[in-house]
């Protein structure tokens, strides 16, 4: 199989962050949560609010690695009519507005499998998507999507966890590019937080095995936590906490209040300030 070139956006962004001497901010929102229009307003505002890389969730009815906040976001989106088609439409709109911020789709395999792997990769690439994170595809299932994705020029980002020991890491890092997403806790999204020390050790362990940038996520809720992570990792990922902001912007009937998107983006601005100030005074 000949390999198509990837977009290069993820590598360029991390290189730029390294030049600036700072860690990046990665945000996660669910496509279509709480509805298409509000989700678009948030998504399109993220780069200006300070997100360096954007993860967009593909809603799934049975997200078994996610905590209550992201589960609820997916169900809200599905109830409002979200589908793979509308998710890809959001990606297209994002790319039409922003040509450089990396966009990564994240979710579970079944909706991709039903859509058809070949068709999905072609449509996602055409929409301007740079990479994929698929939670329930470990290296043991690489032939499903990982290898076709890499061949089509799509970055395939792998999750590494505290249970991924040194013996297993090479297998996890074999067919991957873009960056490595370190899941800093054993558990589902949005529940616990890891200690600074654990994250520092984990990042240096990963760096012994790979030259790829390392983003750390799960349990990062505040600008202070994001800053602490960005001090040692190449980027901090914030998902559940941002989604909780979105949920807090719904009225009693579950409809978005007019200021929902602004509130969510203000929260991202706060995180970005934290991340950008993280290494001040700590570098020579």
């Amino acid at each position, binding site marked *: 199989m000949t390999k198509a070139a990837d977009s290069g956006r993820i590598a360029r962004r991390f290189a730029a962050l390294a030049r600036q001497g700072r860690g990046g901010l990665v945000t996660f929102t669910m496509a279509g949560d709480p509805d298409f229009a509000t989700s678009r307003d948030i998504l399109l505002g993220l780069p200006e609010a300070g997100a360096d890389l954007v993860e967009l969730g593909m809603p799934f009815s049975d997200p*078994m690695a*996610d905590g209550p906040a992201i589960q609820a976001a997916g169900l809200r989106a599905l109830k409002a009519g979200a589908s*793979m088609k509308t998710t890809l439409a959001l990606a297209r709109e994002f790319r039409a507005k922003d040509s450089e911020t990396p966009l990564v789709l994240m979710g579970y395999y*079944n909706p991709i499998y039903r*859509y058809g792997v070949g068709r999905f990769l072609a449509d996602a690439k055409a929409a301007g998507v740079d990479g994929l994170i698929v939670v329930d595809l470990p290296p043991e299932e690489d032939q499903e999507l990982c290898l076709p994705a890499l061949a089509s020029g799509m970055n395939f980002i792998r999750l590494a*966890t505290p249970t991924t020991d040194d013996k297993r890491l090479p297998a996890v890092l074999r067919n991957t590019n873009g960056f490595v997403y370190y*899941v800093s806790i054993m558990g*589902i999204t949005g529940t*616990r937080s890891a200690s600074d020390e654990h994250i520092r050790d984990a990042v240096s362990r990963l760096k012994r095995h790979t030259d790829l940038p390392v983003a750390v996520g799960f349990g990062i809720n505040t600008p202070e936590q994001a800053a602490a992570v960005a001090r040692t990792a190449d980027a901090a990922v914030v998902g559940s906490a941002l989604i909780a902001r979105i949920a807090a912007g719904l009225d009693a009937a579950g409809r978005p209040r007019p200021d929902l998107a602004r509130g969510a983006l203000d929260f991202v601005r706060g995180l970005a300030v934290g991340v950008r100030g993280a290494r001040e005074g700590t570098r020579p």
Partner: protein
Amino acid sequence: MTLNTYRGGPDEHGHFGIFGGRFVAETLMPLVLEVERAYNAAKDDPAFAAELARYHTHYVGRPSPLYLAERLTRHFKGAKIYFKRDELNHTGSHKINNCMGQILLAQRMGKQRIIAETGAGQHGVAAATVAALFGLPCVVYMGETDIARQQPNVFRMKLLGAEVVPVTSGTGTLKDAMNEALRDWVANVDTTYYLIGTVAGPHPYPAMVRDFQSIIGREVREQMQEAEGRLPDTLVACIGGGSNAIGLFHPFLDDPGVAMVGVEAAGEGIETGRHAASLNGGQPGVLHGNRTYLLQNEDGQIADAHSISAGLDYPGIGPEHAWLHDSGRVTYVSATDQEALTAFQLCARIEGIIPALEPAHALAHVGKIAGGLPKDHIIVMNLCGRGDKDIFTVAQILGTKL
């Protein structure tokens, strides 16, 4: 293509044809591999087999009888109908066969905490039972819809010392209970053993649970030899996840003269969309760690299953059944709520056995075929559970206030 054997699966990656596999989050993957290593070692250890056999004999009450249902045979005026009486096991269903094996494995692995999912509560009760027997804390995840319709089993689990956690996410049934159990496992991988109740989940679970349940079919082979001096002609079993069915079928898969029928729950009718028949009304997809037939929409979102029987109310099916379906070795049919209810009442009155609503689906199918078969045709139906747990559900439908 005719295979040399239908009993060789899965391959080393847990695949039955295109089905099965290990579609789990990275956090779980090392543990799933650890379970596989531990199970492979246990499988080859005579001491493990001996200990399991001892518990089967003295605790579970195996072998379960193979019973010729003479009045039912006369009633249908056709094939000779045998029941494999797995409802007589300790805890009232076949679920204990698997739990006994897995608890011994958990012991070998040094795990200190057991988690399980349950639909009808039969697996939850069996898991709580073996956890009590070995003095391990046990948490059972159960959908709140199922908790409401299976109160006696909820109370049983609590009596056995288990914590029953109501699951409100999704539709509050078995699939959501399984999601929640997987979430617990991700958070507690070091201490916890996930005792999956059916032939689903990531490899090695579908193969391991099948192996533990295959004692059903192995006993039937021997007992039928003794009773009739030959193999049966047709095997019939109900299918939710499919553990009792694969347990009966697997030892006979390479006997071409033995026909096999799996009976899915058609709920209110497959044409209504309100059913739990993954093979007859679903498409291949990936859920709970394996690829199999699933009830889902065109966007890959998992649909709700519907059945009068909480134990069949699952939108998927074990991957080996998906493969046996596609290869044509086993025939998969369905029976509706109403047909199961009629069979349930018939069995009680004519044989003095109140079956669970799950095997009542199998019996409904036996009733459809027995009359058209010759008198020397031998059917074995797996009577995999007793109906005590279902009397409240049935009373409600029949308009009787208890």
